[in-house]
């Protein structure tokens, strides 16, 4: 039975989540040097175009068509059978098409997150091939395991409200693998690359935060109490995390920075994502604070020591935040918030923590191995990295024959 309120809400949320990919483009775009910003924007918009087509053609079926297997079935190939009638196992009160579209935006933004790891040095053609393969062989199966009917992690009882494992761990681990395999950027071996336009990064964060209400509250798939609550905890965690990161910088580096504050907010948003439909507002404050502390350590302490060049910290923020959040569900989840969920350790159910840990481990290991194989394959075929001379000139001019800023006129 279709509910018009629910349908309207999910459509609005779909549009909100769509806006996150351009938001991410500006978030990342401001952080790179000015010779590479169009490369970042182009990659994000390309993901939006290409993966929408992939999703409609076969991605949705591989992810969500009921199946006990590794992938979803091929029953919904080309949206065959995906129509106005609700598919009750996913969302009983909205047209099946609305659910499919909402999920399409998740399938788009997840591979886009990885762009932060190989920014400023990946060949455009290699990026394109990598993205299509990664979406098909990593995102689609993992999405099926956690959210699809018959998926093994779903049947195990894993709780991932809006994508801590499917989106953030998955993309974050892939980002780490990509950064390690592609190697460091030239010329900045031992120091950070100065962001060329932080206001743009702040604008991108604002769009991400705004879109995240759709991401999390929309994952209730209805305009109900759970949606309202997810909205509340999402906002709360982002606020707590932003303030915490600024405080950490003030204490340890002498001054709080806008770059740190927004990095913290994004870490908080990524971390609360899997927990947003299951935990109290108080727990959201704790999760937000913990997100900034843990991600701060990952980005400012561990990364420089290990020496990998995850250019824009896709792993340090999304990967680490996603792991923390997915485990936090096992601690803080409460049936009082969402009867369709489960209780966590703090509410007397230690098994949930174990189940959540299984999901973290499974997604981490699978994403690690599969991403490694895909990058190897693409490298053998067409080389993933641009030649040195092109890297020095910048991706805007060499990959796309255009540049972002003029000096004269």
């Amino acid at each position, binding site marked *: 039975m279709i509910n018009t309120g629910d349908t309207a809400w999910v459509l609005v949320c779909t549009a909100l989540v769509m806006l996150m990919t351009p938001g991410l483009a500006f978030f990342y775009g401001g952080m790179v040097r000015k*010779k590479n910003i169009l490369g970042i924007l182009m990659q994000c918009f390309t993901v939006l175009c290409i993966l929408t087509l992939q999703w409609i053609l076969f991605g949705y079926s591989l992810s969500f068509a009921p199946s006990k297997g590794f992938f979803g079935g091929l029953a919904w190939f080309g949206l065959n059978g995906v129509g106005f009638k609700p598919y009750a196992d996913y969302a009983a009160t909205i047209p099946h098409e609305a659910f499919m579209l909402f999920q399409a935006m998740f399938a788009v933004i997840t591979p886009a997150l990885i762009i932060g790891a190989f920014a400023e040095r990946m060949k455009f053609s290699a990026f394109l091939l990598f993205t299509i393969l990664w979406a098909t062989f990593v995102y689609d199966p993992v999405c099926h395991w956690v959210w699809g009917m018959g998926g093994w992690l779903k049947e195990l009882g894993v709780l991932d409200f809006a994508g801590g494992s499917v989106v953030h761990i998955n993309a974050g681990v892939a980002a780490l693998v990509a950064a390690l395999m592609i190697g460091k950027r*030239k010329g900045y071996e031992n120091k950070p690359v100065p962001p060329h336009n932080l206001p743009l990064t702040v604008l991108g964060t604002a769009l991400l935060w705004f879109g995240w209400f759709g991401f999390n509250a929309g994952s209730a798939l209805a305009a109900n109490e759970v949606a309202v609550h997810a909205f509340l905890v999402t906002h709360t965690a982002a606020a707590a995390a932003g303030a915490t990161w600024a405080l950490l910088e003030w204490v340890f580096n002498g001054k709080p920075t806008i770059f740190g504050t927004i990095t913290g907010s994004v870490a908080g948003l990524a971390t609360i994502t899997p927990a947003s439909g299951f935990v109290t507002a108080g727990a959201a404050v704790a999760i937000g604070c913990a997100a900034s502390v843990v991600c701060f350590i990952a980005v400012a302490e561990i990364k420089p020591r290990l020496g990998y060049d995850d250019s824009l910290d896709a792993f340090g923020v999304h990967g680490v935040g996603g792991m923390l959040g997915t485990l936090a569900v096992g601690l803080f989840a409460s049936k009082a918030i969402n009867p369709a969920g489960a209780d966590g350790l703090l509410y007397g159910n230690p098994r949930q923590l174990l189940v959540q840990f299984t999901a973290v481990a499974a997604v981490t290991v699978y994403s690690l191995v599969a991403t490694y194989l895909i990058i190897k394959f693409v490298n053998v075929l067409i080389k993933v990295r641009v030649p040195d*001379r092109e890297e*020095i*000139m910048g991706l805007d001019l060499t990959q796309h*024959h*255009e540049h972002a800023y003029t*000096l*004269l006129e």
Partner: protein
Amino acid sequence: MKLIIAIIKPDRLEAVKQELYKAEVNLITVSEVLGHGRQMGITEVYRGVKEMGNLLRKVQLLIAVNDDYVEATTNAILKGGRTGDIGDGKIFVLPLEECVRIRTGERGGPAIG
């Protein structure tokens, strides 16, 4: 006193700076400029329309030195700035008539260092 003007590739700036510090030349002014020599720029395409011979981004260094520092400074720029590819840029050495430090009003050699 000489004025040294050098046009280099933007990505060599860091290396040139390090070489200058080693040569104990610490006072430099840097600006972003556009230009091309034999390299003739690069093709850009906007909505399908090709634009040939565009100017490339370069960095210009302005360094005023006493005569005994000229060799060390040019060598430092050569060392840090040379890649061997076309477009590495040029160094111009000009006679410098006067130099005044605004803070103190000092003139000539002492004002440069």
